[in-house]
């Protein structure tokens, strides 16, 4: 168990800087999830923590000790790769015990450690198999087992569940979460999956184009996104963002609706008005009429895409809405859950 400190880390490939000074504090035993669009540098950051990529500038410390120049094996970390990277010629048991074997630990001890980890992950019946004889989910678990056996200070996961089908992913999500609670270890976890991030993380780091946009608990990011990027990135379907202007009467949205200023907020001039799809209400006294484009019933909810004053908005209703594309729908944009962002900088107001 250990804390990890990432301070002002930059990374360049040749002349191209792809990470522009990243600071992430990670507390002892925390489950931290890195999210962000493809190519934003999540894997690169993780690989720098692992020691697989050179840090161009800045510091990475584990447990207060600067590790920039340490070999991966000396950092006391374990990594689970997206494609699992199991050693094809070795059995499950050999795969899991490889690190201990390299470290020269006695055979009996390796066997005991491997069996213990196999027990935790229900891999015991598979210990004699080769990776080729395992299903995707089992391989995934072997990869985790290999990490657990080493009893590292920090676990690093790079999209470990993205090759699994939806059902297995839900199961493994729960298993990883349970594992974290059981081992109490520090975990840095990269994912594309919103739900994974929201459900598993103690702390989410939202990255974009080589920068950190915001760090916070899942609900903090959801309820108080620091800027337009985080607002639209977190949550699915994404938050509606509409151009608006603060007037004496309140907020005039896209020139078609005027709503009162939400309690506790203040602004003036041009702003962006953000409202999550489930906070758009259908009907209401100050409703304006939107043109329905697409109606998607998901079973539990109805997703409606509509246009309002030339802007596309998404509405999520818990009720079954019986409406056809092309028709008009009265919607109300007033909400105490609305977010206001600076129209120019995108920062939360």
């Amino acid at each position: 168990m250990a804390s990890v400190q990432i301070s002002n880390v930059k990374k360049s490939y040749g002349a191209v800087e792809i990470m522009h000074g990243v600071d992430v504090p990670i507390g002892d035993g925390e489950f931290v999830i890195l999210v962000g669009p493809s190519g934003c540098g999540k894997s690169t950051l993780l690989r720098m923590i692992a020691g697989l990529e050179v840090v161009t500038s800045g510091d990475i410390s584990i447990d207060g000790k600067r590790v920039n120049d340490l070999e991966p094996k000396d950092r006391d970390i374990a990594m689970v790769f997206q494609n699992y990277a199991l050693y094809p010629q070795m059995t499950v048991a050999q795969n899991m015990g490889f690190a201990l074997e390299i470290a020269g630990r006695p055979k009996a001890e390796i066997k005991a450690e491997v069996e213990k980890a196999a027990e935790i992950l229900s891999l015991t019946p598979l210990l004699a198999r080769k990776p080729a004889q395992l299903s995707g989910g089992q391989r995934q678990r072997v990869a985790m087992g290999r990490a657990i056996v080493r009893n590292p200070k920090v676990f690093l996961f790079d999209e470990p569940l993205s090759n699994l089908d939806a059902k297995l992913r839900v199961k493994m999500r729960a298993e990883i979460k349970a594992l974290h609670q059981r081992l109490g270890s520090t975990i840095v976890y990269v994912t594309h999956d919103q739900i994974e991030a929201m459900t598993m993380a103690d702390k989410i780091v939202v990255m974009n184009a080589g920068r950190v946009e915001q760090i916070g608990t899942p609900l903090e990011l959801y309820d108080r996104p620091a800027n337009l990027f985080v607002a639209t990135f977190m949550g699915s379907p994404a938050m509606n963002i509409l151009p608006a202007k603060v007037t004496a009467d309140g907020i005039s949205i896209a020139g078609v609706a005027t709503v009162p200023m939400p309690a506790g907020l203040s602004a003036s001039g041009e702003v962006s008005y953000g409202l999550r799809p489930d906070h758009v209400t259908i009907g209401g006294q100050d409703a304006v009429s939107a043109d329905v484009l697409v109606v998607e019933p998901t079973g539990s909810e109805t997703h409606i895409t509509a246009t309002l004053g030339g802007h596309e908005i998404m509405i999520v209703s818990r009720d079954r809405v019986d409406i056809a594309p092309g028709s008009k729908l009265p919607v109300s944009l007033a909400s105490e859950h609305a977010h206001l962002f600076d129209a120019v900088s995108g920062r939360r107001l």
Partner: protein
Amino acid sequence: MSLLSQAFRPVGSNRVDPMLVALWLALVVLALVWITPFIFIVFTALKSSDAVMNTSAFALPTEPDFGNFVSAWQRGNFSTTAFNGVIITFIKVPLGLFISAMAAYALAKVPMRFSKVFLALCVFGTMLPFQVMLAPIFKQVNAFGLINTYPGIILPYLAFGVPYQVFILHGFFAAVPKELSEAARIDGASHFTIFRRIFLPVSLPVLSALLILDFVATWNEFAMALVILQDPKMWTLPLGLMNFQSQFQSNYGELNAAIIMTVLPAAIVYLMFQRYFVAGLTTGAVKE
């Protein structure tokens, strides 16, 4: 009949596939073309001189006679040439493969300056047929005073064999997912351990293919040996065989016995290692 007709049907179908029939025909014809001279050689080697003259070349040897092998062995000085062949081949082939595999691993997986240049040099090396280099090689080996020595022949063999093997193995190693060696590095393995414990087992099919090819080529190599090994005490089997042929041209029985003894080891090595040819040993390393 049922077994035969099975061969002409795609698995799980009961219609005869004309393509399969044609393929089988082609295989049979090809096999005949290859086997015919072989049968001729084996049959002749087992016949006495009388039988060679008085029976058809493809008549079964009615009284198989191993005398040809015994006398060819003595007269052809096989104990010397076979010994030389074993020394040279058994040193050159494993050593060359080992060097090539390590070089290929380094070029493919160890971040290094100029690795592309080295690889380009290797590729260039594969383009030079050594026959055109015989004269310079002779001068070079002579300058080192290595004519008629084992190092004198093994070193040029290595020089011409390694680039080709590096080239093949580099392609293979480069295709092994980088996460595999990264996982091993995190597990604490040194480059040498990664090479030995992960890359060598994964590349067993390629290595055994290269081993067979190289063994046969080295065992049977003629031109360079002819130039460098001039002392009959240093001759390898092909040189001995050529000499034998010019001396005992008309003794077909012994000549063919000599031919069989020359090529047999290569055939045995082939049979020993061909089972490792099976591809797909990497399946399951990573999720496709």
